[in-house]
């Protein structure tokens, strides 16, 4: 399984990511997820979220998740971009892409990765008030 992980303070460039996609002829499904910073956190209106990562451990934990995913589903490729630092409201902090032969496994694997990431990968957020 091909994997690609980017942890960066740069904005996520969806169009560039889409253009760089390479997939085998046997693959029929691509599922992409974008997590976008919402303008409110609880009851508070915010301007941005500041993401902090313990980056070497985040990378290790993502590797474990990629391994678990690859053992469970016949996925060809997973790409993850997590933006850190200050991410303004209405901009994406997370982009995940899963490529698989069929739709059901692509959806399942993508959701698994995000669910597990939210339990395991050491990244934290701090709302920045307006």
């Amino acid at each position: 399984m091909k994997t690609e992980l980017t942890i960066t303070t740069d904005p996520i460039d969806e169009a560039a990511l889409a253009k760089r996609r390479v997939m085998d002829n046997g693959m029929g499904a691509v599922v992409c997820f974008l997590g976008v910073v919402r303008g409110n956190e609880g009851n508070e209106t915010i301007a941005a979220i500041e993401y902090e990562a313990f980056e070497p451990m985040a990378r290790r934990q993502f590797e474990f998740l990629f391994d678990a995913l690859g053992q469970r589903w016949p996925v060809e490729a997973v790409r993850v971009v997590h933006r850190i630092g200050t991410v303004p409201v209405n901009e994406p902090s997370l982009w995940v892409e899963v490529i698989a032969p069929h739709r059901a496994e692509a959806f399942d694997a993508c959701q698994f990765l995000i669910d597990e990431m939210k339990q395991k990968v050491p990244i934290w957020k701090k709302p920045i008030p307006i």
Partner: protein
Amino acid sequence: MVSSEQMTITVKFWSYFRDYAGCPEAAIEIDNGATLAKFHEIVCDQFPKLADAKNSTLKAVGLEYEDDGFVLSDGDEVSFFPPVQGG
């Protein structure tokens, strides 16, 4: 100076645990063969605000999560942090 019965463990605090501790990391001396649970207790004694969050603390040694029973070795780098919130 560390006696031969003691080892030095570095602990890093992440997210708001850094504010609770008042510093990003500390070097702590502890008896050889101490477990992660014992180390956690000692850190909570030294940084009392961390004791309030003790039950929700996530614990890693190096880059991996470890259980309370994990036996520490001299030079280990421990991380304590609140529940993660990526995405």
